[in-house]
Every structure is written in C-alpha cells, then in structure tokens.
C-alpha cells in the first residue's frame, strides 16, 4: 500500500476518502440513483480513520447505520460500497444490504447494523471466538451516543468486562440521537457507563484523527495483551443531517450558529494541516480519481435479478415457498 493508514498521510487519505465518498453518495441520493437515502458520516471521519488505523486486517469491527466511514476505513473497496448503496449486483452485499448493512467478512467487517446498540453484543461474541482461536485479535464496536441508553449494549459491556474480552467500545458522541440531544437523553456520563463495569474509559477529541489513533492504540494494545475491554468516547460533530430525508422533512433542531461552529473543527482540515500542500494535492487527486471510478463502476453495474430476491435467505440454500397468487 502506498500509504500506511496510521501515518499522517495515511490518516489524511482516509478522512479525505470518507468525506468525498459521502459527498458523492449524497449527490447520488439527490439524483435518485441511491434509493432510501443515507446517514452521512460527514464530520465524524477522524474516528473511523483513527480507530481502524490501530487495527490489523484480521481484527473485526461491527458498525452502525451510519457505517460508511467505518467500512471504508477498514479497507472496503469504495466502488463496491457505492454499488451496494445503489443496489447493484456488484455491491459489497450483492445489493441485499444497502447503506445500513454493508459488510465485508474477508476484511473483518461483520456488518453495519441498523438497530442502535445491537452490535455491541455481537462484537463481544466475535471477540470471545477470536480469543478461543488463540492469537491476539481484537474486536471493535462502533456506536453512537444514542446507543448508551440501550440495555443490550450495557449487558454486552458487562459480559465483555466479566470475561475480559478483547473489545474496544467506541462511542461516537456527535451530540444527537437523531434529534434528541445528549443532555436530554443521557443521565450521568457516557464514560460512567464503562466505569460502572470496571472498563477503562476515556473521552477524547473525536475531530482529530491522531488523537483518536493514540487512544485506540492504547486500548487495542491492552486488549491484545489480555487486559480486557476499553471504552473510548469520541466527541465529534455531525456536519450534515441525521439522514438525507431531513432536508425534505424540514425538521429543525440545530441552529445555524451551532452548525457553523461545529463545522469549524474539520477533521479533513485538522489532518491536512500536517501535510505539505503538495502532499495534500497528491492525495486529493488520488481520492478524486478513486471516487470517479467508483461512481462509474456503481452506475454501470447491473441491477440484481428480481428472480433472486430471496437468494441467500438461508445459508443452507433452503428455498422459501413463494407468496402465492397463482
């Protein structure tokens, strides 16, 4: 690989890739090529870039309904992720999963998950299985601030701490669970959730990829050494809507000043400042070219055959009865 993902150039490349991917994806939502819309990750790129830079290919992640950034940072092919968003047969999930379920098992991506908090328990099981196999693989669960009020996530933290599982719980605190503010939703603190189970818990600046990488590396090292789970709360800001329908629905819950202030600390700018102008231009051009090719690949790819709508429903190949009507 030209750029190790944990170098300054590598981190910049990842945040730039995610940013441009999301911008192109939003364009494809507007053009109608992506049906159903997306939950843009714009503004939160530093977290995926920093955490995944601390991981190996054989480590596993589980992700959220706002999952494009995690999937890309773990190494998924942007062209196949975009094809998945566009519902094409060449997509990561053969057009069966879409934006909220992107998975690439070969890269340890056990799937974005559309039920808030559900992936925490799945991650614990994957971490346990990894440990049973021997070796020092770790598992990362990404989730938002909304998930810290889901019982299943707290149950999963208890299991992970009790059994000292190599899990990294990464909370992306962007301040809002859809439209509900953290202040209106979270009693106590987010790190307090982890501390209650004896899990080392820290809060870091989630806008700076280097800061996130440092915190993730410490937690991953501890997990690999048998030290059990960690919780890293990353303070971040979602630059765009919760979901692309928001603009049409005309819901208002953030004032313009807040959004303007939030956007001032931009992970792409923060990380870009660590590169020379020449390095930035080179990465920008490379990422643009990658995304141009990805868009072309996605839009040129075939749609899946409707006759196979329920292919893969059962791993054993069992075929369900059709819906009838003749």
């Amino acid at each position, binding site marked *: 690989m030209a750029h190790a993902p944990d170098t300054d150039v590598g981190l910049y490349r990842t945040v730039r890739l995610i940013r441009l991917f999301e911008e192109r994806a939003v364009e494809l939502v507007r053009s109608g090529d992506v049906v159903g819309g997306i939950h843009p990750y714009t503004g939160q790129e530093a977290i995926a870039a920093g955490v995944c830079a601390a991981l190996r290919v054989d480590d596993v992640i589980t992700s959220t309904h706002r999952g494009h950034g995690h999937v890309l940072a773990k190494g998924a092919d942007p062209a196949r992720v975009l094809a998945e968003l566009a519902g094409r047969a060449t997509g990561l999930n*053969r057009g069966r999963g879409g934006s909220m379920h992107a998975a690439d098992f070969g890269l340890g991506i056990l799937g974005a998950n559309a039920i808030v908090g559900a992936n925490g328990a799945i991650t614990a099981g994957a971490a346990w299985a990894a440990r049973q196999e021997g070796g020092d693989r770790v598992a990362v669960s990404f989730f938002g601030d909304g998930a810290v009020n889901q019982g299943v996530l707290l149950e999963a933290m208890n299991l992970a701490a009790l059994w000292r599982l190599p899990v990294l719980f990464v909370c992306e605190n962007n301040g809002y669970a859809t439209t509900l503010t953290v202040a209106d939703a979270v009693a106590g603190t987010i790190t307090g959730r982890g501390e209650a189970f004896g899990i080392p818990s820290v809060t870091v600046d989630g806008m700076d990829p280097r800061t996130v990488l440092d915190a993730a590396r410490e937690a991953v090292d501890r997990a690999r050494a048998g030290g059990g789970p960690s919780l890293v709360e990353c303070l971040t800001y979602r630059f765009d809507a919760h979901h692309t329908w928001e603009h049409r629905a005309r819901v208002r819950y953030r004032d313009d000043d807040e959004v303007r202030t939030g956007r001032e600390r931009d992970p792409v700018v923060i990380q870009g400042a660590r590169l020379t102008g020449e390095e930035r231009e080179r990465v920008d051009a490379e990422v643009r070219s990658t995304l141009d090719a990805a868009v072309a690949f996605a839009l040129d790819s075939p749609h899946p055959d409707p006759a196979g709508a329920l292919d893969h429903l059962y791993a054993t190949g069992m075929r369900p009865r059709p819906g009838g009507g003749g």
Partner: protein
Amino acid sequence: MPWLSYRKALNRALGDELARDPAVFVLGEDVRVAVSNVTAGLFTRFGPDRVLDTPLSEQAFTGFATGAALSGRRPVIEFQIPALLYLAFEQIVDQAHKFSLMTGGQARVPVTYLVPGSGSKAGWAGQHSDHPYALFAHAGVKTVVPATPEDAYGLLTSAIRDDDPVVVFAPAAALEVRADLDHDGLAPVPLGVGRVHREGEDVTVVAVGHLVHDALAVAEELAGDVSVEVFDPRTVYPFDWDGLADSVARTGRLVVADDSNRTCGIAAEVLATAAERFDLLAPPVRVTRPDGTVVPFAPALDRAVQPDRARLAAAVRKAFEH
C-alpha cells in the same frame, strides 16, 4: 432394550455434538449445574470454554452467540423459560436470521436456541407457559418441535449441525416421555421431514409436539369407529407439505392439533395450505389455544385453554361424520 427419556435424549445429543465438533459450545443461565437437567454432566466433561454460565442478560448472550457464530463457532443457547425468547426476539429474528440475506450470502449464523419446557406446565401461569413456535415459523426462522425421545435427539443434532439459526422447542408435556430404544441407533433426523406415527384411512390428524401423544391416544380410542392417521411434521418451519399431501391423499380428511394460538397459528397455516392445495372430502377442523391466550394460573383454568384429547376426539368425529 434400555429406556431413554426425552430430556435425557436432549442431554445426549448435546454431549455427542460437543464431543464431535470443537466449534460447538453451550451457553445459558444455570447450565453448569444444569437446573433443567438438559445440560447435566456437560460442564464436568467439557469444561468452562465449552459450557458457559451467563448472567441474566438474554439480549446480550443471544447477540453474543450471533457474533461467535459469525466467527465460526456453533453456539447452543439454552432458554429455560419460553418467554425469554421475547426478550431475545430482536437478536434472533432481526439479527441472526437476517444476516445471511443482508450480507448477500457472506454470513452463516449456526446458532441453536433450545427451549426445554415450552408450553404449559401446570401452575406456572402467564409468563412461564407460552409456546411461541408459531412466531418463529412466521418470521422464517427454522423451527423444530420434537415429540419423541429419538426425534428430540435426532432433530437437536441436525439443528446444531445446520448452518442457519434454528429454534428447538421441547414441550414441557413431552420431557418425561420415555421410549424403549437402542441407544446406538440414535441418529440425526433431517429438518423438514414429517413422520407418520400411525397409519389410518379416514382422517389425517396433524399433531405438533406433545400433542402427537394425545393424537395417538385419540386414534386408539376411536379405532373401532374411525381409522386415524397421525402425522407429526416434527419441523413446523420448514413444514413437510409433501408428506402431509401424501397423507391427506389417502384419508381425504384433515384435523390439526396445535398448541399455539388460533390466529396466525400453525393450524391456521395448515388449513390455509389445505384449502389451496388439498382435495378434501370434508371441511378441515383445528384444535388450538384460543385467540390471544394468556395462560391462567389455576390448574383447571390452565387446562381449559389447552388443546386436549376430548376436543381432539370431537374434532376427528366432526371431520369424519361431515
């Protein structure tokens, strides 16, 4: 030949699969000391890495099993109370079941959800007496309700070896059933293949789980008047429609005994399929729990909502005499 109880058959199937495949492990509440007896002896034999006592965290340990399965393991979860499945419904129906399709075939989720003691156990009241197999069949999760010790062994074995999630409901009323069996002859029973327990000429009775034994008793009771064939689907999803079609082709009449609620129950599905597909001599009849049943506490009230032999016998006569 030695006797084998249904409960012991489940225990034997777990032990045999744990011994055969190192990817298999058992988890659940109180499985080390085996409060239900189904996991008796397994902790001593296989140790803490294969038999995991979990905290009372049904959602987490059910999701945990999914994660372990995605990573190559074959978890078997024991749920000691059927209603706990409601707590874990999201983890089973919305996660484990959906992973294969949603990932475009990348994922396999070979988890077995074993529910010994499902259905009515007199005196256990509203939250311990449900028999929710129809919910899982409706969602498309493979759903098994064995009636006999040899089928309990064979179907649980197949469920553990299956690459998809499978729920195995062991009815409370069947756990003490014993059979005179050659233990060495125990073998896997394929999912989706029914069994004719008794051949007959006049009426096919489809009976699920412990109701097979009631159907056999009714068939014996009516033997002089009506010749009853007893068909046990064994797996309610997938259902052996071809096997049932063969049976109904012989008898021309159909009665269903199903320990789930009437609306959207398995009996409802059998009757609907019969209306589409079978050439019946008389309208089919079902014997089920009432719509929306909540099992009442007092034993007489509990019995009043269960499908029983008297109602089944009446249903058979009704179908036959129509």
